[in-house]
């Protein structure tokens, strides 16, 4: 049996202070630009890995980061009431999930997940934090002891979601065809 490995790890933390948010959506814009191919060559907030949940007349401004991909929607639903207005639980959920089009690439349908602006060389601060000029988003690095856990990379997550949607066979066929065309 393999022991869990305990490792010291630097954890990147983005702190969100919703009271400071001014609703400018600069975070969405810049995130989409950073992840464009080539970098900054296009913008499209629908492709951002952060999404401002904005309900202006109830003073709700919540920047939400794209979390894990989930292949099945939740069984239950909760309802939140804030200042007398009710919100579906999904409103504040971070998952890229089959039941809605949040955090999915609008062109390919592939799930999007915040990668903390992974870059080489690494950025000093994630781009959304840099774009947020009123400190609603701030960045910190903290040391933490952690159990090592393998997490699928972005491509794998994407493939998993495709497999779930279309079945292994179809995905394999498409892959074979695409790679042939590419050759």
């Amino acid at each position, binding site marked *: 049996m393999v022991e869990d490995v305990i490792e010291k790890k630097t954890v990147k933390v983005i702190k969100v202070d919703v009271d400071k948010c001014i609703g400018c959506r600069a975070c969405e814009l810049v995130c989409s630009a950073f992840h464009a191919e080539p*970098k*900054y060559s296009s913008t499209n907030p629908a492709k951002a890995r952060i999404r401002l949940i904005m309900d202006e007349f109830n*003073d709700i401004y919540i920047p939400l980061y794209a979390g894990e991909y989930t292949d099945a929607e939740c069984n239950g639903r909760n309802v939140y009431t804030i200042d007398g207005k009710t919100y579906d639980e999904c409103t504040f959920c971070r998952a890229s999930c089959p039941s809605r089009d949040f955090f999915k690439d609008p062109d390919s349908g592939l799930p999007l997940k915040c990668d903390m602006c992974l870059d080489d060389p690494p950025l000093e601060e994630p781009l959304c934090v840099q774009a947020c000029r009123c400190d609603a988003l701030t960045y910190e690095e903290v040391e933490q002891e952690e159990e090592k856990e393998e997490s699928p990379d972005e491509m794998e997550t994407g493939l998993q979601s495709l497999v779930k949607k279309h079945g292994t066979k179809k995905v394999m066929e498409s892959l074979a065809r695409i790679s042939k065309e590419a050759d």
Partner: protein
Amino acid sequence: MRYAETGYNLEIDLTRKNIEKVATDPRDTELYLGGLGTSAKVLWDRVTPEIKPFSEENLLIFSAGLLCGTPAVGCNRTIVSTISPQTELMAYSMMGGFFAPELKYAGYDKVIIRGKSKKLVYLWIHNDKVEIRDASHLKGKGTVETAELIKKEINDPKAHVAAIGLAGENKVYYASVEQGRSSASRGGIGAVMGDKGLKAIVVRGKKDINIARPGEYIELCDEVLNYIKFREENPIQGVPPILAGLGSPQEMKIHDEKWHTENFTWGNARERRKDFWTEEVAAKWSESMDKVQTRLLSCYNCPMQCGASINVPGISTYMMKCYSKLTYTMAAFSDLDFGFKIVQRATEYGVDGFTTPQVMAFALELYEAGILTDKDMPGMPSDSEGRFYWLLDKIVNREGIGDILANGTYWAAKKIGNGAQAYAHNNIKKHEQLPLKLGMLHPLYFVMYCTGEKMNITQIEGNFPQSPFATQEDKEAFVKDWFQVPDDKFKQYLLDWEMRGEKSIPNYPTPQMTSEIVDWQERMHYIDDSLGMCAGLSSFPLKPPYHMHNYPKFISAATGMDMDEDKLTQAARRNRTLIRAFNIRRGMSRKDEKPPEDHWRKRFPELEKELLDTYYAFRGWNEDGVPTKEYLHELDMDYVSQDLEQRGLLK
């Protein structure tokens, strides 16, 4: 591939319920940039002078600017243009917020609307899916209420809605189009939208906007952000707080209203209260502000926070921007508590925050003068605030006297007669102006007021200080890092400008200098309106982050077009001239180019003539204010001179 722009317009015919996506000509982008410029071209080509504001053939154009949707900070303006019912000339008004970038992400640069729908409808633009939908259930609903209802109906909280309220539906000549925290208010654009039977345009987009040279572009954007930060830390010295910073202007953040309340006039733009701002007032007004503001807000991709959500107990939340906080307050000789309350109702109705309070104060003056009587005002309350609410309701519903007042002071005075015209004293080209009454004629402002095609001084003035600095040290400190000037000579003009004596107003700046300064300020505004840039970061404040030197780089990097300062100047002048020609074709002429009669107490007819003559000549216009054939040729606009010649407007 098209860069920065989408390369498509959406053509909507409301009579035939026809929807078309039309590719645009990239050459038009080179000549007119986009936004206001390309809209003016469409209006020139398709709206001939016979077409009236409420004709089926009148177009209503919602346009994003060339750089909207790109990472350029504060570039989020929607430019709405049509024929104004009030002036019968081209109306164009800009709104901030989120609409323009969203439209670009949906894949369109403009929505061009023609025809009329018999039933009230709204337009739902969702990428390639565009629908004309029934809006009969939204009839009479407020602008904020409408937006919320539509978002629920289409089940997309991220859609953006530009809507009219009851004022637009009833074709009030100064009805606005409201969009969240912003509005396109001037010129009665909302009335044209109402006449077309269009309650709202709703947009949601999920497509890419492409940048030609991304690395270069993002660097330019970073420079702008850094300079904004620098300017926040280094406000301009020697000017009132409202002029010291950037933004459009920062009415929600700034509590010190000495400058506005003592320099601008109260009531029907007549009374100046030079000792109004006492410590007591300051304390009370600060308290009023703090009590109702729940959050400061920005437009898309901008850190400036010029807007705020306002929560007055007992009435529903709304968002306020800029100066409307003071216009109702001052017109009614009231206080901020009243101002914050009535603006909520005015926003739901969708009316212009400049013209509306002025019309109401005008009506009350007529009443006090006995020109309007109790017969005209049945049931009007006796207190000033009550009267303002009463009048607002009458106007928006076009009930009784409200039906006449709904056309603005110029048309109302004409209709009422009996000496009423003397009370409609604050108009230029039939349009209500800022409530200002000053002493000595100011050459810059004289030219801008007379010739400004935008009818609104805040959209013409800008980068050059309004008045000279008091001391030589202040002047030198100001020009030291004034790199925004298009030419160093402007620094000298400012250094030499004195409060008193030979080199003071009205004779200095000289007519030639005046023309050059006005040209610079206008150029910046016309560029902003074509790019979709907020004036608050560019043409309006002193020392802005966008200017003649970095704009060509922005445009080149974003679009891939080859742009330099000369070409950009040429494009701005082309747009300015095209709009002038459009209005000339609709009957505007030199005789219309005058400020409100009592705007300045001291007037100088000879100097004024010289100022206009010099400016016209500098502009390439003849002495009637019509662009000359040679100048039009220089600007690649022979098609304009041909048309003007055919109509006998140019010989």
